[in-house]
């Protein structure tokens, strides 16, 4: 059993994005996906794009875990939208400082993270692209909102992987996902430094190719228990302790 904790509702061809994503994931043995919007991350069609995700989750209960985003620049409107999405079943909040145009520790994010903490939904941050998506900026938030659960997507990518490991090491409430982290030694170092309990498989499909992303994890030659943690149990545990 595999959970892919990082996918997007994103059109890449003429076929229906959801059907095509679920088909690809099924072929790879992935039974549950955390699904996030795509266009809304660019502050476009925020409501409609999130609703596609919410509706997809209604159509495939248990198989699709809906994550939403809101535009942090909308202030109180964003707060109300987030509450509404949570009422409609959102289990996670996706934040993308690079595309949303502010550093991860910006005060504009604080009311949103506060709601996520209070309502018990996961906060997943894009990380690895300076100047706005730095793991230690997320650490700032995690040390403020200590009961919120954070996932650092991409394990800091090519430049900030060490910061991602440091951030997850310093805060019990920070996890990392593996999407797009293409250095096998970095994945192994993360397991060594953090333990496999903090590392969650994600592919970033269909933006990145899930076939490559999954194969990469298998190429790390990890003990079975670590592999099971990364591919399934950690994400499952997070879901069970969140809302």
């Amino acid at each position, binding site marked *: 059993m595999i959970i892919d904790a990082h996918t997007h509702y994103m059109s890449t061809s003429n076929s229906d994005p959801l059907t095509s994503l679920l088909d690809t994931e099924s072929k790879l043995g992935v039974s549950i996906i955390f699904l996030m919007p795509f266009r809304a991350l660019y502050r476009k069609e925020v409501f409609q794009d999130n609703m596609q995700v919410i509706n997809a989750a209604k159509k495939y209960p248990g198989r699709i875990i809906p994550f939403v985003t809101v535009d942090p620049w909308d202030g109180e409107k964003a707060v109300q939208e987030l509450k509404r999405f949570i009422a409609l079943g959102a289990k996670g909040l996706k934040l993308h400082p690079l595309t949303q145009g502010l550093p991860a520790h910006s005060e504009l994010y604080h009311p949103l993270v506060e709601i996520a903490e209070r309502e018990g939904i996961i906060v997943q941050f894009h990380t*690895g692209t300076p100047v706005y998506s730095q793991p230690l900026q997320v650490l700032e938030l995690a040390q403020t909102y200590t009961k919120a659960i954070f996932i650092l997507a991409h394990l800091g990518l090519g430049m900030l992987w060490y910061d991602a490991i440091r951030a997850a090491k310093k805060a019990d409430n920070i996890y990392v996902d593996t999407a797009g982290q293409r250095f096998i030694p970095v994945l192994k170092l993360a397991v060594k430094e953090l333990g496999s309990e903090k590392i969650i498989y994600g592919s970033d499909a269909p933006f990145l190719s899930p076939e490559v992303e999954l194969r990469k994890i298998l190429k790390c030659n990890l003990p079975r228990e670590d592999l099971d943690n990364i591919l399934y149990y950690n994400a499952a545990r997070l879901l069970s302790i969140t809302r």
Partner: protein
Amino acid sequence: MLVDFHVEIGRSDYYEVNFNINELLELMSKYNVSYTVITPAYGVAYICDFDKANREIYLMSKKYEKLIGFATVNPWLLNESINELENVFRKYGLRGIKLIPYLQGFSINHKIVYPIMDHLAKYRALLYVLSGYHPQSPLEIADLADAFPEVNIVMGFAGFTDFWMELLPAMKRYDNLYTDLSCQSNVRAINGAVKKLGSERFLFASSMPYSDIELELEKIRMLDLNDYDKENILWKNAVNLLRLP
């Protein structure tokens, strides 16, 4: 035929890896790799120990004809680097050098690199440079390619995930820019780029020990390309660039 355009040999304390020559030779035999470009491991070789590292690379490539050695120098140590380049090309007969601006501490388009480029031009040698964020983004590398049109430059990692976005504009403008496809997970984007630019400047690389040869080969198989394009990527382009028999 298959040519692997980039691996690092040796120990890197930074990434806690140690990839030795015997492992490489075994994998080359398992995956029928005809030639592999070998470079020093990430670390002091790129800072101050380049003469020692280059000699090791030379000795390995001398012993095994199928290993193509690429050296390194550090533009900050200009006199030593120029002397070493003379050594590398005249005595060792190597065909290119590798730079890692992020590790070595300069912008790839800074004039500090120009004397090195003059020497590459003089010896018709290649530059392999890891690409990704500043100070080695594809458009920064393109600026260097613009200043030295006579030197062929191969970008490693194809912009490394996010800086893929600069790859197409960089390669579109400068014919002397090539890229390998290692460590780039976006198969869809690779398909699109090859279709736009043609396959003649894309190269297969495993970038071991950072990636894995089977994984990188699988990625090429996943590409929606005809045999002509796949052969270009897997070996023909590399054979031409490296002037292999």
